């Protein structure tokens, strides 16, 4: 196993090197003629007004929040998917995988399915809740007139 991951490590270093090397090497022959206009941020040809580093809309953040939880849940499904076939095969196959690490006498395909199914249902409940409450909609309020807005705030 180590050598496979050693390949990964070396490849990672090579990949970084592939980026860094031309940045440094070609800096020698690249023209460098900076001026204030060139170095300013792109604002469609106009002067920059205000800062882009503002308190951003929360919607992107909520997407990420939902993502994190689902990511963890799906991660838990990977080991299950990996051994599900063995569970269908029966306790002997599971025992062969576990190598004595776990109590496998009751392993069966039906049990593994039910375990996953409960897990999936809980996942679905979370999704259904967010769906029902409208947290998955991108923009929850597009009002057409200011008066509605005022009512909501009040």
């Amino acid at each position: 196993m180590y050598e496979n991951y050693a390949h990964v490590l070396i490849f990672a270093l090579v990949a970084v090197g592939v980026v860094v090397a031309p940045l440094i090497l070609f800096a020698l022959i690249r023209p460098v003629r900076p001026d204030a206009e060139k170095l300013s941020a792109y604002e469609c040809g106009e002067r920059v007004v205000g800062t882009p580093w503002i308190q951003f809309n929360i919607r992107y953040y909520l997407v990420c929040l939902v993502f994190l939880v689902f990511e963890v849940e799906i991660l838990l499904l990977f080991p299950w998917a990996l051994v599900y076939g063995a569970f269908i095969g029966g306790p002997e196959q599971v025992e062969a995988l576990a190598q004595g690490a776990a109590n496998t006498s009751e392993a069966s395909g039906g049990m593994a399915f039910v375990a996953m199914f409960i897990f999936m249902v809980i996942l679905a409940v979370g999704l259904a809740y967010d769906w029902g409450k409208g947290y998955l909609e991108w923009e929850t309020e597009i009002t057409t007139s200011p008066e509605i807005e005022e009512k909501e705030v009040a």
Partner: protein
Amino acid sequence: MATKQKLRSERMLISMGPQHPSTHGVLRLMLETDGEVVEHAEPHLGYLHRCAEKIGENLTYQQFTPYTDRMDYLASMNENWAWCRAVEELTNLEIPQRGEYIRLIICELNRIASHLLALGTFGLDTGAFTPFLLAFRERETILDIFEAVCGARLTYNYVRVGGVLWDLLPNHVEMIRDFLVQFTSKLDELNDLLSENQIFVKRSANVGIITAEDAIEYGFTGVNLRASGVDWDLRRDEPYSVYPEIEFEVCLGKGIKGTVGDSWDRYYVRVQEMYECVKMILQALDQLPPGDFCGKVPKMLKAPKGREVYVRTENPRGELAFYLVGGGKNIPHRVKARAPAFVSLCPIEDLFHHMYIADLVAALGSLDVVMGQVDR
């Protein structure tokens, strides 16, 4: 309901344009955005302002025609025509019948070219690149015809006071006929690619809806007005030139995919109008009479001092009208153009309120503005 709760976040002031891929030239929109939603948009104009109207007051009537080319550079022929009609009205010039037919043929061709570009860029605004280039290929053919007819590809100065510059030769007629034959099938293709495309429909239907009342109150004209369901076309309702002798239908927005007056309707009215243009040109080619293509125009074209005219013409972008006051000599006292593209920009502040950035781009594309005409 929890979803209606207001979340606080700062608004970003962002300048969209003048150098932005989807502001169709040099329109600048100051957007106030909250995340993906545009809360407020304020148009800044004048990046292409060239005092065209003031220049018009210092030039002779004939000399000003090329300046109109530069206003709406996508439909220069129609722009020329509008100016010439105003001058002819002011000076009571007679135009020979053949000249009128040639004008109609050429200007309807230019209408097709202009609509093609509007469709292409609208597709580009929603992210579809291929329709843009397919539309451009057809537009190229039209430009080839124009080049053969008048020698220029963008600023033609072809429609002149009193008629047109050159006659339409038999080989030109042949070119136009050839083009029209293959164009209808190509247009069907383009239609298939974009109009019924589910993603495109979802991006443009129900986006930027302008009701009939609003459209009238804002002074919308042309396609943008008809897309809102208002049955009004100068070519039929206030006919000029030889339009009464041509049969055509006025296409209206019907809200097939969403609501009447949405971006998809504006798009689709343009598509239908191109089919109508083909019909009109074919009729005009059949009826093309022999004779002079240009009337007798005095070198020193004079208009009586104080005489004023307001002549409106149906252009691809709406009603282009020129208001002229004669100056006694060969120079007008006052020139004023009513630019339809400028009117199309008027509802921006109301329309682009609480709207996705992507919808803003789509709605702006569907309004089909040309900044040369807006700024003049």
